[in-house]
């Protein structure tokens, strides 16, 4: 195995899983779409037309937005909120942004610190929040994408039924949009909360998401 693959197996593994699942989803969605189209007597789509449709776009993005929201909130919340006993949490008394010394920022930067961690000023401000900012941007972008593709889908249905179409602003106030949004949010919040609390008492030998098997339940912020 090349050094690149060995050094990046986690990132590569999930990239391959993501692409495989996305392609599989596109075929399943395409078959389902055409089944419904046949039953309704409307036009069937080619594969290329389907993957460039709002139907597929909405199905993809409503799941993306909730994942990015999950990470955005988790990264942000764990700055100030703690869970005693969880390896996902900081020590209870360390809640907050921490010191420059702790973060190797400005004059505490080391030789190998990223350039913007050394610089100070707005560059360091931006860089020290870059993970949450990018996650937040991707969340808002995919949520916007879900809203416009969902809007298009919604209006297509309305037209088929001979009902009035709605504006984008009208659509984001409709139950259709919020049901698609909230059904994804609830599952993310449950999963994160479960992970945080389960990891207090349960272990996986060898995983950095877990505490060492023999670590006490009361021990916070150590990985195995």
């Amino acid at each position, binding site marked *: 195995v090349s*050094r*690149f693959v060995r*050094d*990046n197996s986690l*990132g*590569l593994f999930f*990239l391959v899983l993501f692409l495989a699942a996305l392609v599989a989803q596109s075929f399943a969605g395409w078959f389902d779409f055409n089944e419904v189209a046949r039953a309704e007597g409307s036009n069937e789509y080619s594969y290329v037309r389907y993957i*460039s*449709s*709002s139907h597929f*776009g*909405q199905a*993809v*993005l409503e799941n*993306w937005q909730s994942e990015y929201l999950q990470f955005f909130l988790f990264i942000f919340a764990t700055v100030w909120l703690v869970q005693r006993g969880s390896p996902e949490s900081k020590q209870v008394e360390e809640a907050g942004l921490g010191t420059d010394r702790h973060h190797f920022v400005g004059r505490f930067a080391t030789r190998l610190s990223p350039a913007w961690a050394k610089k100070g000023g707005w560059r360091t401000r931006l860089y020290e929040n870059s993970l949450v900012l*990018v996650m937040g941007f*991707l969340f808002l*972008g*995919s949520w*916007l*994408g879900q*809203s*416009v*593709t*969902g*809007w*298009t889908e919604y*209006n297509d249905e309305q037209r088929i039924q001979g009902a009035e179409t709605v504006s984008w602003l009208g659509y984001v106030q409709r139950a259709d949009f919020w049901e698609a949004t909230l059904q994804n949010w609830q599952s993310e919040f449950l999963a994160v909360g479960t992970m945080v609390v389960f990891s207090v008492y349960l272990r996986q030998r060898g995983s950095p998401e877990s505490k060492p098997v023999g670590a006490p339940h009361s021990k916070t912020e150590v990985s195995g």
Partner: protein
Amino acid sequence: VIVRGTLLLFLTYLLLSLAGLGLYITVGLLHR
């Protein structure tokens, strides 16, 4: 030291996400 391949992986994820958003925001707006 992080090698160039890791940066490539980082950019792959970033560009895939941005391309997905960009594509379907456009699709949603155009096909309406």
